[in-house]
């Protein structure tokens, strides 16, 4: 055992491409960060209005809901799952909160708690179907997506509840603290705190390690003594809670509770996760990447808009970005040791 292997020698002889591959493999956050920085620099060159405090606070507000949903989505994708019902749970939770206030006449605080509980229960239902009935997450959440959107229309009668008819707590997430010209909403603060919390939970607790291990190789994790079903169930349930928080932030952002928004949130949340460098194959990625990924989406949409690019082409650009990100992920995964 005395002879050292050569496997760990610094790869001085590798080509630039290989070294880049290894660098990205070891530090997956670099890619998304570079894209974000380049996008910010490019857009501020093209439009003088981009890099203003007013505009940047708008970007952050636009990103807040997607980022919150993408946080839950990250947890699920880390376990090699996918959640198509993220947006549906968020919107349905927001409608339930509004209904509890308006129709049931509950105080805002209670309605909020009940709404969060309902979102959590919806996530738990996904988790139950994935872990107990052993259905693939894609199919499960495709089914619940349809169900939640349908229930959403039933409960709301497809009517929007105006924010002025709701208790102040419901729209509180849309209020902001001015920092110069920059307006930081309470919703954004909640979102950032949640990212901090889950950064800690994933990287510093046993639960986090188990989430990664389960996504990496569920059978190996099980053999190592991890109760993978329990981990999966917890992940879907916690994601449901996060979506419901996203629904609450959504009420503040729109200053109303509307059943007709959020269709695009499902895919946008997945887009943010993928752009942030979390692998759809599980076990690889981090929440900070997702935050960067959500910011990339927000910056692109906003920048292209300022640049006068039509909405349809914004979608084109985001879609292209996703394909590039996934291809990059595949390439990084093929890293040779």
């Amino acid at each position: 055992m005395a002879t050292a292997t050569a496997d760990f020698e610094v790869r001085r002889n590798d080509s630039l491409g290989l070294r880049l591959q290894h660098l990205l493999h070891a530090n997956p956050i670099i890619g998304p960060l570079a894209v974000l920085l380049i996008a910010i620099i490019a857009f501020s060159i093209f439009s003088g209005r981009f890099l203003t405090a007013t505009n940047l606070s708008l970007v952050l507000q636009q990103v807040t809901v997607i980022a919150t949903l993408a946080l839950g989505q990250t947890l699920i994708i880390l376990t090699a799952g996918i959640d198509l019902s993220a947006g549906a749970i968020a919107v349905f939770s927001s409608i339930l909160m509004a209904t509890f206030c308006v129709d049931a006449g509950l105080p805002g605080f209670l309605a909020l708690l009940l709404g969060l509980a309902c979102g959590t229960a919806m996530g738990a239902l996904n988790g139950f179907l994935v872990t107990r009935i052993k259905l693939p997450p894609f199919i499960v959440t495709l089914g619940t997506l349809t169900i939640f959107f349908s229930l959403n229309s039933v409960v709301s009668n497809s009517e929007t509840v105006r924010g002025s008819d709701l208790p102040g707590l419901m729209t509180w997430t849309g209020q902001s603290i001015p920092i110069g010209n920059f307006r930081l909403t309470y919703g954004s603060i909640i979102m950032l705190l949640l990212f901090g919390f889950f950064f800690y939970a994933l990287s510093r607790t046993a639960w986090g390690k188990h989430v990664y291990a389960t996504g990496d190789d569920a059978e190996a994790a099980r053999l190592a003594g991890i109760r993978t079903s329990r981990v999966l169930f917890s992940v879907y349930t916690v994601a449901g809670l996060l979506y419901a928080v996203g629904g609450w932030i959504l009420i503040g952002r729109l200053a109303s509770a509307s059943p007709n928004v959020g269709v695009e949130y499902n895919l946008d949340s997945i887009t943010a996760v993928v752009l942030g460098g979390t692998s759809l194959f599980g076990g690889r990625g981090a929440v900070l990447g997702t935050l960067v990924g959500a910011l990339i989406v927000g910056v692109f949409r906003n920048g292209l808009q300022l640049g006068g690019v039509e909405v349809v082409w914004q979608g084109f650009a985001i879609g292209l970005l996703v394909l590039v990100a996934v291809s990059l992920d595949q390439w990084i995964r093929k890293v040779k040791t």
Partner: protein
Amino acid sequence: MTAETDVDPGPRHAASQTPVLQAKGLVKKYGRVVAIDGSDLELYPGEILAVIGDNGAGKSSLIKALSGALVPDSGEIFLDGRQVNFRTPMDARTAGIETVYQTLAVAPGLDIADNLFLGREQRKPGPLGSIFRMLDRGHMRSEAKRHMNELGVATLQNIGQAVESLSGGQRQAVAVARSAAFGSKVVILDEPTAALGVKEGNRVLQLIRDVRDRGLPVILISHNMPHVFEVADRIHIQRLGRRATVITPKSHSMSEAVAIMTGAAEPPPHSA
């Protein structure tokens, strides 16, 4: 060589010595397929017991029953003479039986220290650990380093590097080190040298000897006859779901072992 002419110079186990791990009459059926059919096994203190057998002989099922990954339909398992009933891999692990599976139960994306402590992470003392659930990474890393060094796997530069960046032999070393670090009674290794190069395979064999020399008996499942004959103290031959016989590398040759394994030769009575 027939059984009558055997002069057995191998290790003998006095009847007074209790097996560390003993299986009696284990049966496992999958529908109408009989995986193990009344299989016995004894593992004595301080030995490497190899388990060999053709595909479908029931090696894997036997081992899975011993490691809690499979619950036998009938039969008994004794650990240190006391009967045990494993329902999950964690049961066996808690009882002191560590298994390294052929599929390599490591999480490739996690680092070496994380893998060593996977499923039994240690938290920081005080409120940081009990309330904030914070892992004691520093302690786990230094412990991991110590375990790896103890087994002579000190060539690893960085205990914080991802397991997927290691070579096959080094990954195996991590898995073996984990089992040796936490196994208090028995270490079971399923095909630890499969898919390894010659050099790496030999290194893992040495690792297995090191584990035994530290006092942990080892069950080694392998198809690689030269490896089996190199390290095993006794060889359990599994055939058609049961134990055909137990030999030692000194009592029988490799080709005789293969002949018994495949049914070409009558199994001799236990010579070990």
